[in-house]
């Protein structure tokens, strides 16, 4: 508590002078004051006090200008984020598809080898998140993400050259390490361009990459199952790894070239539009860019009840999500379908994911409560999984707990 009070008072005293001192130019302020405790967005606003959007005329309303800015941002940010997230999932999933092709035999996988390969990627991601905390803060977030996308694309493509279990394992661990940044990066990027209600549909669209990845990956793997080594030289699953890896690298390069780190660096906005956008997102109070690492904030997070509740919920929901992703293709195959049919039949799973992601995001954008929607979308899963236990006692227990 004392530490908190101290840190607040330190913040307050080290704040740069207010705007009511126009005789000082901002570079002079920067020299005499440490500006590291104020967001880079403020420094930009300070330098461009009189900037107005070039598109603004006497007839255009503030809302209209913001709408135009948002539309521009949407076209330049959202598709890239979406492609990166889709590839993140497809490059993980490629192993599952290769698993129903000839990969197990070609790499002489036995026992738990296959599931170990799946698990290794996730463990590498989970472990690598710790250094990622620091890296995300030190490096420009969009550039850092783009480089990681390129590197994990290379890792995926290298999977095609795997000769046995251990060489495949190396590529999958590297994949997991480079993929560690995608989830936090996208969350941070959204907060730099959009207000909180605006973030919901964009973030949801990015997560749609999971459903789309399932569908596209299923279709691709269905196609490559018809490729046999005799008529091409490479096994179908190897071509699948190369195809996805190369696509990922291309998307990563595009992200590096076209995704700026923050609104201040957006080449498609003029200074006035940048000011208007920063003003619009200032109500978030979550900042845009500040590269100074402050360890006190880690301790605060560790003692913050909301952080633990968020983490607990995420691990609980992600646990069940993992089961669905890992087992839906297998469960379908166990119903007696052949591998080709199973991959095709798994595609509607993606459609269901898309629906349950899109509807709550749309509702949150319109100001509806997040918590109520989280509970609402839980209902179908409750109903499905409680079916085996239908008896008066269970129903009572179910509704009591719900």
């Amino acid at each position: 508590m004392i530490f908190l009070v101290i840190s607040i008072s330190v913040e307050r005293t080290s704040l740069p002078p207010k705007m009511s001192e126009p005789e000082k130019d901002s570079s002079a302020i920067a020299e005499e004051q440490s500006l590291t405790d104020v967001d880079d967005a403020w420094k930009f606003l300070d330098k461009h006090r009189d900037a107005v959007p070039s598109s603004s005329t006497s007839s255009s309303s503030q809302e209209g200008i913001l709408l135009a800015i948002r539309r521009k941002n949407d076209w330049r940010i959202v598709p890239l984020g979406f492609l990166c997230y889709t590839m993140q999932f497809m490059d993980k999933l490629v192993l599952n598809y290769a698993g129903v092709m000839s990969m197990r035999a070609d790499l002489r996988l036995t026992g738990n080898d296959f599931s170990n390969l799946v698990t290794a990627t996730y463990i590498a991601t989970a472990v690598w998140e710790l250094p990622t905390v620091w890296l995300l803060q030190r490096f420009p977030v969009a550039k850092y993400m783009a480089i990681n996308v390129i590197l994990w694309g290379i890792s995926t493509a290298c999977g095609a050259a795997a000769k046995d279990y251990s060489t495949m394992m190396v590529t999958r661990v590297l994949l997991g390490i480079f993929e560690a940044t995608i989830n936090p990066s996208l969350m941070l990027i959204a907060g730099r361009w959009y207000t909180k209600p605006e973030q919901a549909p964009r973030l949801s669209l990015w997560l749609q990459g999971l459903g789309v990845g399932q569908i596209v990956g299923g279709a691709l793997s269905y196609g490559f199952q018809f490729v046999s080594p005799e008529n091409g030289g490479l096994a179908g699953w190897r071509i699948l790894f190369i195809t996805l890896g190369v696509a990922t690298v291309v998307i990563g390069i595009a992200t590096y070239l076209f995704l700026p780190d923050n609104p201040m660096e957006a080449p498609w906005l003029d200074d006035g539009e940048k000011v208007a956008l920063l003003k619009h997102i200032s109500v978030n109070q979550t900042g845009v860019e500040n590269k100074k690492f402050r360890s006190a904030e880690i301790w605060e997070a560790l003692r913050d009840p909301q952080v633990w509740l968020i983490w607990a919920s995420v691990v609980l929901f992600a646990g069940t999500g993992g089961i669905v992703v890992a087992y839906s293709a297998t469960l379908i195959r166990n119903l007696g379908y052949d591998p080709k049919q199973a991959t095709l039949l798994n595609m509607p799973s993606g459609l269901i994911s898309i629906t349950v992601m899109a509807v709550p995001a749309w509702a949150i954008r319109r100001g509806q409560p997040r918590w109520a929607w989280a509970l609402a979308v839980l209902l179908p899963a409750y109903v499905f999984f409680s079916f085996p236990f239908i008896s008066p006692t269970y129903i009572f227990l179910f509704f009591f707990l719900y």
Partner: protein
Amino acid sequence: MSFLPASNKPGLLTGIYLTNAISGPLTIFWNWAPANVAGATKRAFVTAMVGGLFAAGAVIGPQSFQARDAPEYRPAKITILATQIAGGCTTIALFLYYVWQNKSRRADESHWAEDAFMSPEVWARMTDKENKRFRYSY
């Protein structure tokens, strides 16, 4: 539905498809976490850990499917139901926590409006706990 006889393929398929509704709450948390955590380092930390827990959950979850439980996988289904209910409880707890936090902050000062955007305080390096004008969304 997950209890239908093996001969009822359409029913079982529908059941498998429906379980994908699980992605719903996860998406909501994906935009809920960054909305309520302020401070550059705290945001990086909390979102990176969310990414790590996504991955950890994906590893832990499937462990509940043990080959000896085939073909019904009853323990796995019980585990899934239990984690879903627990997730529902933590969601409600989070909601109540935010309501309580916002209530205790209301007395302080009013929420920043867009007009205050040039005030350095709006852009000061503060976490959601340090910034008494921060309001949690739920």
